[in-house]
Every structure is written in structure tokens, then in C-alpha cells.
């Protein structure tokens, strides 16, 4: 498990939905640019790392019960996407890190916390 404030610190991230609770927790982390894979394999409550910034990312999270999104590699969604996420209570984070680096930092953090990685 990882909480939002740790995600922000680890990834030097910018919270695009400021009203979000920094203690919001994510049970799993899933990384993909393919929403088809998210719909097939991501677990409810997970945090999604992706390089896609369109509305389908928020729709996919909403449909599949994912709890948050990190946009990697300096990509930022348009205002309408952010507004859609706010309405659906899905926290959005932007980071300049690459997908690989962001995944590595989160994985390291989870491991250091004593959680078993699958």
C-alpha cells in the first residue's frame, strides 16, 4: 500500500486535484498506456501510472474502480480531463519522471516498507 503524499514526495509530483486528501491510500499500483490492459488486469483501488492524458484515462479509472492516476514524463491532461477527475473524486498527479523511473521509485518504497511485492 502507498499513500498519496508519499507518491507526491517520491515522484516530485504536482497534485492536479488540490482538494484531494493527501492520506488517500492505494492498495496496488498498475502501470500501462493501454486502457484495455487496465480494464483487464488492474485491481480495484489501484493507482494507475500512465503516459496517456485523454478523457479515456479518467473514464477507465471510474469504470474499473481505480483510485488515482499519475501522468508520467511531464505530460499534463487538459483542464476538462482534470475537471472530470475532480467530479469523480479521482486524484491526479503529474510528474516529469519517466514511466520506468516512477515505477522503480514506487516499487522501492513499497519494498522498503516491508510489503511483499508480487
Amino acid at each position, binding site marked *: 500500500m502507498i499513500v498519496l503524499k508519499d507518491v507526491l514526495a517520491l515522484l516530485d509530483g504536482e497534485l492536479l486535484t488540490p482538494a484531494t486528501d493527501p492520506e488517500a491510500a492505494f492498495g496496488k499500483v498498475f502501470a500501462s*498506456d*493501454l*486502457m*484495455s*490492459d*487496465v*480494464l*483487464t488486469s488492474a485491481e*480495484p483501488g489501484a493507482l494507475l501510472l*500512465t503516459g*496517456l492524458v*485523454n*478523457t*479515456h*484515462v479518467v*473514464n*477507465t479509472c*471510474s*469504470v*474499473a*474502480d481505480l483510485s488515482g492516476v499519475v501522468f508520467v514524463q511531464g505530460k499534463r491532461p487538459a483542464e476538462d480531463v482534470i475537471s472530470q477527475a475532480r467530479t469523480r473524486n479521482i486524484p491526479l498527479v503529474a510528474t516529469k519522471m519517466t514511466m520506468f523511473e516512477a515505477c522503480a521509485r514506487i516499487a522501492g518504497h513499497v519494498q522498503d516498507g516491508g510489503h511483499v511485492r508480487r
Partner: protein
Amino acid sequence: MSAAESSYHRAFPVKGGDFAKAGNAACEIKELLKDIGLDTPTVRRAAIVAYEAEMNVIMYAWEARMDLTVSPDEVHLVVDDRGPGIPDVELALTEGYSTATAEMRELGFGAGMGLPNIKRNADVFAIDSEVGRGTRLDIIIRKNGHVPS
């Protein structure tokens, strides 16, 4: 009270190629099912099925009607599209097989997982397709049905 008396029905029109509204029907269906009070895993499976089916219509068909019927024990979704149809249904049900364009893939879809994922989340799945006419999906998701592995 009979099942017919206690069932809820609503139709959702979907227009092919309308990527701007893609997902609206599925998100509305999900909110409806939550409001009706269905359990979370059933709502999630039905929403995923509806979203994958809606995206298929938007990517490949010209128009469709999604008919949602909710009864105490199950969610029934029929997606009847007018479109090019599927020449080889068995092939289309193979994970990874896709005829998606580069544009569809850039949106994060078209990985050849749509129909297999619909089937995976359904308790009852039937598909009927005719080339040049369209495709009809008939899906039932039962309350407390199977959870996809």
C-alpha cells in the same frame, strides 16, 4: 412481486466514431447500478462490460443501442449495432487479435482485449454478427456471479 415487475429498463444510444462522448453510457450505467444498490463487484463487472462494448461500437460500428435491464438477480445488457459486422467471430474473440487503427491505439484502445474481456466478465455471453449488417451482443451478469481470475 414478479421479476418483470421489479425490473428496471433503459436504452442508451451510441454513435460510432463519437470519441468525445466515449464512455458516457458506461459511466451512466455504472452510476445507475450503484444507485439501484447492486454490490460493488457486480457493478464493476457490468461497468467494464458496458465500457468495452461501448468502445467497440465507437471504434468499429456506425451506431448502436445498448439496452440495460436490471432485475433483482442479474444485469442484462444487449448491444445491437449497425455496422460492418465481424467476418470471423472466433478470431475476434482471441486475446490480442485486433483490427484497430493507429488512432484507436493512441487513445489506449484496440489492443484486441475488448471482446475477450467482455466474455471474461460475463456469466452468459452470446454474440451474433453478420457482415454488412452489424453485431449483437447479449450479456448477463449475475449478482454474486463468478469473479474473473
